[in-house]
């Protein structure tokens, strides 16, 4: 995202707030370091003008916060939506999770966000500060060295294969829509599919064994917006609070989580972004998306409000289970 967009966003949001159009704004502000930009709610135009950050580190999908914020806040809530976040926004609307009238959405153009893990790996030592330049990051390390890292080398995978940079929901658009990414979103899933069952098993055992059940994936996921998660619900029969001795617990959690968001997941990639163990959780969701597309025809969750999700509809000649989509 360009500096110009950040300026525009600050100006417009503050204007709206001063005019009483919105009572608060869901946006991002700088955290402890330049690279950890975190979601926040601004209540005054001054805060917005001073602290709102809209740049390649504004990765978090804000749409989920609308559920609680619209319940609490007075008047209309402002929100900044990257194109991918706008799909989540629509999906939440489809599920009646907030009232559209209570929200004013400012659409942001996006060319990708930075994978901070990748950046840290690339820099190789502690980062002191970051300056965003055209197409590159100027990183000053703790040892005082200044490195220039091309953005193209540290864009997040989810942005390289982004399903669409064309926003599907906003009240006003700040800046120009950027061209779509052209990499194949399902290449990684296909690679796994082409492995033998043994290899896949080994892959996922290695990945999922690292899970510490911190619930970060669940908490960030805009589709995981249940009032109370089944894994916290004593009547569900599967309530678990923490990793148990049972060797299957984490797999069950992740499979069920993926299943619960199947047909609703917009592939925003937040789950993998926040995972402290860097488990590629999005590959589970993407598998469902790929299967849904091939079994039941292309479907993009959140592309339009009110569409019927694949798991709550059917046709009489759907493929039989276990046939790999064959009818």
């Amino acid at each position, binding site marked *: 995202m360009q500096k110009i967009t950040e300026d525009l966003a600050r100006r417009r949001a503050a204007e709206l707030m001063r005019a009483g159009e919105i009572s608060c704004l869901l946006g991002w502000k700088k955290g402890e370091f330049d690279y950890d930009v975190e979601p926040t709610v601004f209540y005054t135009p001054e805060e917005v003008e001073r602290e709102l950050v809209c740049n390649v580190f504004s990765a978090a999908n804000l749409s989920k916060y609308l559920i609680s914020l619209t319940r609490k806040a007075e008047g209309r809530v402002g929100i900044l939506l990257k194109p991918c976040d706008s799909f989540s926004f629509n999906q939440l609307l489809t599920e009646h999770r907030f009232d559209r009238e209570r929200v004013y959405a400012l659409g942001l153009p996006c060319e990708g966000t930075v994978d901070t893990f990748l950046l840290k790996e690339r820099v190789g030592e502690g980062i002191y500060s970051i300056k965003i330049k055209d197409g590159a990051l100027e990183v000053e390390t703790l040892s005082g060295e200044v490195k220039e890292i091309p953005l193209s080398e540290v864009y997040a995978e989810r942005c390289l294969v982004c399903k669409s940079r064309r926003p599907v929901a906003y009240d006003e658009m700040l800046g120009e829509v950027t061209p779509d990414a052209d990499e194949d979103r399902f290449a990684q899933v296909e690679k796994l599919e082409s492995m033998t069952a043994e290899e896949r098993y080994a*892959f996922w055992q290695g990945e999922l064994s690292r899970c510490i059940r911190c619930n970060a994936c669940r908490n960030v996921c805009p589709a995981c917006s249940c009032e109370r998660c089944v894994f916290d619900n004593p009547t569900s029969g599967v309530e678990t609070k923490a990793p148990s001795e049972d060797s299957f617990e984490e797999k069950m959690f992740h499979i069920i989580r993926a299943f619960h968001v199947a047909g609703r997941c917009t592939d925003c990639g937040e789950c993998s972004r926040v995972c402290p163990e860097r488990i590629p959780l999005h590959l589970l969701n993407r*598998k469902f998306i790929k299967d849904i597309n091939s079994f039941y025809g292309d479907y993009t969750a959140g592309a339009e409000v009110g569409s019927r999700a694949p798991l709550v509809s*059917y046709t009489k000649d759907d493929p039989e289970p276990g046939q790999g989509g064959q009818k």
Partner: protein
Amino acid sequence: MQMTDYKPKIVAFCCNWCSYAGADLAGNNRLSYPAEVKIIRVPCSCRVNPTFILRAFQRGADGVIICGCHPGDCHYTSGNYFARRRMALLFSMLDYLGIERERTRVEWVSAAEGAKFAATMNDFVSTVAALGENRRLEDLRCKK
């Protein structure tokens, strides 16, 4: 492990109207199938939550089969169509995770198909038995 000694644990979810009645008919006609098959009665195949299936695998089941009315014949008109979608996706996911796809199955068995019920169970048990014990996506950390 000797294949002949190995008895897989099989959980069969049967809808009350067709498949559970089909299983009863298999009994009425004295059509035998392995005792490893234990049936759980549900009103409809659409009552089967993927959680139940994963829970069965978690607790040591080697195979899980869901039986319902034939598509178009659901007592509740559409339950099995939803079940079919859910299971198609879930089974594909389990396969993706490296759990053999032969361990899960959906079969449509009507109340009149006692013979099909018994034949299905015989086939399913021998298929699962041939795979051996389920490795259940074990967590590396839990390995002794």
